[in-house]
């Protein structure tokens, strides 16, 4: 059974100054899936992501990624295990070019240290060339080839959303956490995003998705987890979720009409 679980979350609890954001939440993400987490604002989705990526530490509970316990380790160590993510509020390196942004993603795939970089030792040049090539591939996957020489700060929002994904892909993650990738995008861009998520999944990367656009979620997901007040309301395939009475009452009933 262990092979069927890429990520296991067990009895996870986190509260901020008395307000419980996540309460005893458990779920498993199987590999090769697009797994979505939905729920109304304040349901604790981003808090969950922040714990999964090591930015917040849970008060209680366990998180296992490929059977490694990742509670208590630093985000960069989580990244080294093969988890990458994008952010709800863009966390771009606006002080860098598009190519450099994505090359940062190649950090874990290269070895050059400060000293060898300082003296430009022979291996450095080769690694630079490789990194650049990997970055180009990641950019190509997100259809960003034509922005390669631009400064990140000069790009429109929709492009930046994809750039963030390209950067995360350059890490070559096994699990990609995507926090509202379609937020603020127009219809065309949303369709592109949907296709991109599928492509990523087909490339063998498991996607954990938080998204408000129900249309996108229902189209793209293999399984869906519904959160309400930090705990699990329902879990299942899109069809199951759409039929779930609790979900329809608490959440879809209100919002889905507008979103779809």
């Amino acid at each position, binding site marked *: 059974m262990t092979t069927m679980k890429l990520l296991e979350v067990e009895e996870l609890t986190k509260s901020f100054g008395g307000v419980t954001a996540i309460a005893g939440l458990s779920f498993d993400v199987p590999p090769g899936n697009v797994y979505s987490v939905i729920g109304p604002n304040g349901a604790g989705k981003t808090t969950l992501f922040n714990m999964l990526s090591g*930015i917040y530490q849970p008060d209680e509970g366990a998180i296992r990624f490929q059977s490694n316990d990742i509670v208590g380790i*630093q985000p*960069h160590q989580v990244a080294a295990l093969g988890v990458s993510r994008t952010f709800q509020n863009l966390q771009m*390196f606006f002080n860098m*070019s598009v190519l450099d942004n994505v090359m940062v993603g190649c950090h874990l795939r290269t070895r050059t240290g400060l000293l060898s*970089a300082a003296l430009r030792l022979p291996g450095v040049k080769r690694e630079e060339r490789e990194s650049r090539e990997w970055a180009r591939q990641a950019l190509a996957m997100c259809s960003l080839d034509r922005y390669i*020489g631009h400064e990140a700060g000069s790009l429109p929002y929709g492009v930046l959303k994809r750039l963030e994904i390209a950067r995360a892909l350059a890490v070559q993650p096994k699990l990609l956490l995507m926090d509202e990738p379609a937020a603020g995008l127009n219809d065309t861009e949303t369709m592109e995003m949907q296709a991109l998520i599928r492509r990523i999944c087909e490339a063998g990367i498991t996607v954990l998705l938080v998204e408000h656009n129900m249309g996108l979620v229902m189209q793209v997901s293999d399984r869906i987890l519904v959160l309400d007040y930090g705990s699990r309301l329902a879990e299942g395939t899109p069809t199951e979720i759409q039929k779930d009475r609790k979900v329809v009452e608490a959440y879809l009933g209100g919002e889905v009409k507008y979103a779809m």
Partner: protein
Amino acid sequence: MKRLSGFYLLAALVVLLPIIFPDNYYVTVVGVTALLHAILAVGLNLLMGYAGQISLGHAAFFGIGAYTSAILTTRYGWDPWAAIVVGIALTGSIAFLVSRPILRLKGHYLAMATLGLGIIANIVLVQAGDFTGGPDGLGDIPTLSLFGWALDTDLRWYWVMGATMLGTVWIALNIIDSRSGRALRALHGSEVAAEMMGINTTATKTGVFVLAALTASLAGSLFSHQQSFISPDSFSFFFSIELVTMVVLGGMASTYGAVFGAVVLTFLPELLVVFEDFEVMIFGAILMLMMIFLPQGIFVGLQTPFRRRLTRRESPIADTPGE
């Protein structure tokens, strides 16, 4: 190599100046100070401009280097070169020890902590008079010699300082355009995102903090041997501020900008002396005006419109992004 074309230009300038203007006060005296300041500014720029960690106490590391060299050579008769190495090792260790708690701080708190560190270091230099010579300073520091070539003229010091400066610039350019350099810039852009890319931001910050301190220590040792006399006034809070001003004035996150800022800020007071009592006021006004109208720094501020015009004409496939 396109990447280093600016560097070759700078090198040519450094080499040609004393040849074109031999025995010129502005080249061999003010120039040497400008070169020294450039070394410090380039180091500090790695920390401040690229990694985005402000330091208002950089003079402390400059001072530790200078005083280690001075004390070991004058009081214990050490060879100057050995003293420089020990100075660098000592400064590096101190920087490493303080970096962890200090670099946890952000923004103005970090500014305050580094400022406090600089002031504490200065107070120790003043108060530990039996060891440091106190406010009167330490004299008779021997000069350096390179393979029997004693650095006993301003011109010779110019060459050594120039070579060191170019070395520092070269190293800085190499670092910025590498995996480590991108890590630095990334943590400036977004610390969380940098972590998620697998960058150990704590270690990276520590690394660049120590590197900047080492550069300052080397500069301090050179300063010590060049001046043959040092006193705490040269390592005060005001000098730290001056260094930060050099970096910001030239343009943050630009190595050439840091060099440029250092040169401007070294020559400006030299040129303003003719104004006598008005000097202080004019200096303050120039500083304000430059920062108001070129908030990105003179070098970067003047370069950006120019470069934008270039990139608009060319198709955006430039292989190497600018520094």
